């Protein structure tokens, strides 16, 4: 009974806050808070056009040109926005079969994507096929646990990138899934897969201690959660510290809302994944306080 009363009152509060703003946001940041918006997609799989209107699951949904409209609207609301993708950009429609990913990268560049990680299907035309399309991508490819030293991608993919927006230092790193058994060796060639958990710990330490990042985001193509021992976003969240947000992919998971997991120190980590095919855009808004009066682990999370 008490819980229901709480839900009711919080819903009312939400409605009240929403009435004042025209945008999609229900909260206006007080002046002392620094606001950064993270927008993200995963597993778009070459779905450039919306699904057909008679599609059984996603009638008339998705579409790159509509996604761009929405992104631009949000940018008008908050110019401090990062746009990210968690991999499997390639494969799924004739756009990929015909153009090998050229159009996907060109559109993402037009939309102003900042960074993406590499999914298993991004190797579908071989590592050489991916390399060939890189000139069309005006955004960063991040992967901390694929060692490309002995491949054509050597020097093309960074483990992480630090972005400075609105005075906030945001460290973003990428993690990829084990390729053996999932992708033909003739496709990924000499790409070396390193343990995501160990690499994540090292990378986060670097981002926090050396790069002095205020926020740490992981772009992961590991998958949301598995019954087996296989490493997943959920396990990664629980077994690491200092990651604020994991943007996931691979499992095509439609989360009704971002998951709040607890890290090795018991602090909150957000995990989000928005299905596939560009049917959804994920949006996470961070409001950061520099007054020193707020303990980061006690951030109010509204999902």
């Amino acid at each position, binding site marked *: 009974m008490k819980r229901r009363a709480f839900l009711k009152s919080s819903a009312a509060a939400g409605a009240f806050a929403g009435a004042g703003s025209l945008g999609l946001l229900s909260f206006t940041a007080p002046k002392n808070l620094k606001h950064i918006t993270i927008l993200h997609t995963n597993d778009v799989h070459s779905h450039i056009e919306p699904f057909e209107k008679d599609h059984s699951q996603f009638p008339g949904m998705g579409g790159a040109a509509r996604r761009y409209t929405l992104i631009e609207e949000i940018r008008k609301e908050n110019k401090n926005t990062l746009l990210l993708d968690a991999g499997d950009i390639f494969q799924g429609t004739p756009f990929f079969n015909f153009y090998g990913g050229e159009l996907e990268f060109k559109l993402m560049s037009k939309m102003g994507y900042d960074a993406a990680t590499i999914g298993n299907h991004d190797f579908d035309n071989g590592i050489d096929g991916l390399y060939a399309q890189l000139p069309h991508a005006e955004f960063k490819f991040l992967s901390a646990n694929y060692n490309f030293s002995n491949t054509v991608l050597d020097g093309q993919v960074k483990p992480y990138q630090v972005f400075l927006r609105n005075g906030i230092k945001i460290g973003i790193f990428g993690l990829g899934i084990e390729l053996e058994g999932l992708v033909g060796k003739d496709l990924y060639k000499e790409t070396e897969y390193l343990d995501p958990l160990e690499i994540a710990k090292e990378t986060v330490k670097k981002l926090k201690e050396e790069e002095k990042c205020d*926020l740490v985001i992981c772009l992961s193509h590991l998958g949301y959660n598995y019954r087996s021992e296989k490493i997943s976003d959920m396990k990664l969240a629980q077994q690491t510290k200092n990651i604020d947000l994991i943007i996931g992919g691979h499992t095509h998971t439609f989360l009704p809302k971002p998951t709040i997991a607890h890290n090795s120190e018991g602090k909150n980590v957000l995990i989000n994944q928005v299905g596939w095919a560009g049917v959804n855009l994920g949006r*996470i808004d961070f409001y950061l306080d520099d007054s*020193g009066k707020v303990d980061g682990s006690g951030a109010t999370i509204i999902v």
Partner: protein
Amino acid sequence: MPYILLRTMKKISFLLFLFLASCKFSSDLVPARIEGKQLQINDSIPADESMSEFIQPYKENIDREMNQVLSYSSFDLSKRDGDLNTAIGNMMADAVMELSNPVFKKRTGKSIDIVLLNHGGIRASISEGPITTRTAYQVMPFENEVVVAKMKGEHVRQMVHYLVDAGTAHPVAGIELEIGKNNSIQKVLIKGQPLEEEKEYFVATNDYLLNGGDNMVFFSNASEVLNLNYKIRNLLIDYFKKHDTIAPVRDYRFIRINQ
């Protein structure tokens, strides 16, 4: 102001400063509030015109090629029309035999004995009427390629047991298989000849199944594998181009006989 008072005030303000400073967790930026949500992309959002215009020529080019008529189907073909073999599955397995065998022969001097695909790999049905490039993409959207595995007769027998246990219309060619009551095997012929345990056979399949897809673990016993680098989809396109009409039928290659 008396000096002593000034000193006291300084002391108090210093203490006050210390007190305030001790309230600080840190001087870093820390998240005070986080909001997360999923935004659905649907027809309530207008498409950005410049982006739609940019996509248009790519789309038109694809449509032109996709709508190209390659062949004609005399019937509606669905993978659900049949118990242990279907017309569409037979067509696919026969197409693999017909078009990959010359490639394999040219490279090795040998011939393919058996073709095995999987029922789940037939991704769409074919309607009576024109067959276009799009049809091939719908039936086979994946990038799988034809591979040929060299297998001993005893391992081909494992494959036969797999087919019998699965009881599914996995597309096959080059093999005749009859099962009776309680899944007893009544007849196994490879290219019309009885299966010999010691003989080596060449089995064409795709790279997905070769690697154990659909639980086809028997392929791990292959002693040699040759990838023909021939995509099944391209093979289908070539097959449709070669045959101006297709009229495959369900036949007797894999059947259940009730005695």
